[in-house]
């Protein structure tokens, strides 16, 4: 492995950092608005984990993880599609970078943006957290593990979407019809135990649900499914998607003619 991929990683990190207003500040404010609106309207009206956790406290990890996931996807997908459409992808295809190096650089940069935005959302929402919110933070390593794996999965999905899409329209369709519904229906705003049995069953086929549930487990030590099950599903998804993406890069699908 040459060191070229480190330059690509640095370039991808610098790319979103240079437009931090759009890539970091905007999603933090969006998440804050969600928190203000939902917590004011639903605090005390929605019971989660049998009333053992307040709604605002429940919502904060969900919003943090949602921001991590959406921004990880946005980073790799938008970078790749822009490079494809403007033609500057040639600068990455000409050097001796292997498929694994290209994959690693794009996914790590996506994780970087996801985690930075997630960290920002976490810090800002802490102001609105109920007293003692952080006093019980029993499993921070589970939280970190799910944040890393979740952002890696969404960074990989962004890479797949960027490779597949030939115009911004197609990428927007992928984002609006796949990523957004899967994120919103994953338990960011509710516990699946508050859903009717049919929707509870369906939620279990949504890998995003396991990412959010496992991430939240780190905060409260409570979850809808055992965290080890979530880790297995999320880890397996990350591995499967990574292999598919590496195969696409290896074959040069829609990148090399």
């Amino acid at each position: 492995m040459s060191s070229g991929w480190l330059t690509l990683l640095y370039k991808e990190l610098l790319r979103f950092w240079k437009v931090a207003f759009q890539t970091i500040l905007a999603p933090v404010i969006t998440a804050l608005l969600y928190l203000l609106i939902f917590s004011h309207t639903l605090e005390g009206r929605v019971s989660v984990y049998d009333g053992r956790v307040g709604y605002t406290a429940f919502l904060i990890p969900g919003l943090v993880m949602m921001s991590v996931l959406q921004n990880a996807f946005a980073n790799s997908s938008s970078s790749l599609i822009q490079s494809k459409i403007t033609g500057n992808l040639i600068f990455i295809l000409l050097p001796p970078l292997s498929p694994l190096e290209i994959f690693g650089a794009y996914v790590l940069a996506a994780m970087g943006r996801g985690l930075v935005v997630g960290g920002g959302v976490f810090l800002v929402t802490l102001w609105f957290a109920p007293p003692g919110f952080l006093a019980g933070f029993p499993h921070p390593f589970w939280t970190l593990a799910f944040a890393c794996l979740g952002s890696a999965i969404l960074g990989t999905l962004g890479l797949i979407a960027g490779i597949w899409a030939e115009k911004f329209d197609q990428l927007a369709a992928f984002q609006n019809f796949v990523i957004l519904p899967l994120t919103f229906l994953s338990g960011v705003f509710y516990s699946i135990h508050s859903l009717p049995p049919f929707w509870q069953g369906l939620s279990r086929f949504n890998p995003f649900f396991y990412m959010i549930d496992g991430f939240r487990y780190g905060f409260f030590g409570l979850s809808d499914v055992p965290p080890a099950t979530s880790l297995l599903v999320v880890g397996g998804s990350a591995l499967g998607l990574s292999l598919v993406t590496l195969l696409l890069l290896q074959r040069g699908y829609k990148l090399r003619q």
Partner: protein
Amino acid sequence: MTVAVSVRQLRKAFGPVRALDGIDLDVREGEFFGLLGPNGAGKTTLISILAGLTRADAGAVSVMGYDVVADYRQARRSLGVVPQELVFDPFFTVRETLRFQAGYFGLRKTDAWIDEILAKLGLTDKAHANMRSLSGGMKRRVLVGQALVHKPQVIVLDEPTAGVDVGLRQSLWAFVRELNQSGHTIILTTHYLEEAEELCGRIAMLKEGRVVALEEKQTLLHGYEGVTIRITAPAAPAAFAGKLVRREGDVLFFNLANYAELEQLLAAYRTGGIRFTDLALQEADLEDVFLRIMGRAS
């Protein structure tokens, strides 16, 4: 002499279109090699395969002895490509663009070399300018810089002067000549045939995915010796109608094989009683050779 680029029985089709139909050619180390052909001849496809941007259906290509598929890392390190399209990354400055390109090739601490490239390309005062703010000609210079930043032995310039003003064209060629004199192999595709005639030592002409000529420039020019005559007259003698290649009002252009034929043409004018008021001779240049070869190959 060592072979810098070797192409063997290269084939590539896009659906029913045969872009490359069994290309064989060698470019020698240190050569200034011209790759000419009309649009759609396969020049860019050949360059894309050389650079690893396109995969061949059959055949083999190597750069400095490294197969572009099996030894792609070494092959790509040996090759610098100036693409035809004016592409750039709008997020970065000129210096960042060059630093990144060097970094992709695993090169670190390249600022001294980047400064030299910027100076040679007249971009020193634009080093910290965003790529978006540059004129088309300046963006083209950055593309040249990006192709050179990893110090490749072989440099491919795909239509590098398209849309570039005369001043920049001259300075660009001076720089490329300097690179060639310092040992770099240059492969040039251009629509400006006078550039190829001035710069290239050896020339390959492609048509419909095939090599239709591959010669030293002088051999090409001498092999297609001929004389173009421009005569201002109301008509052409009937016997020479087949030699008339162009007509602009009363100005007639004849392509003749040699000066003996010129004598016959003038005799035909005399005997036919057609008066001409002006006559000028023109030696064959690469454009004539190109047009004849392309016409013959059709």
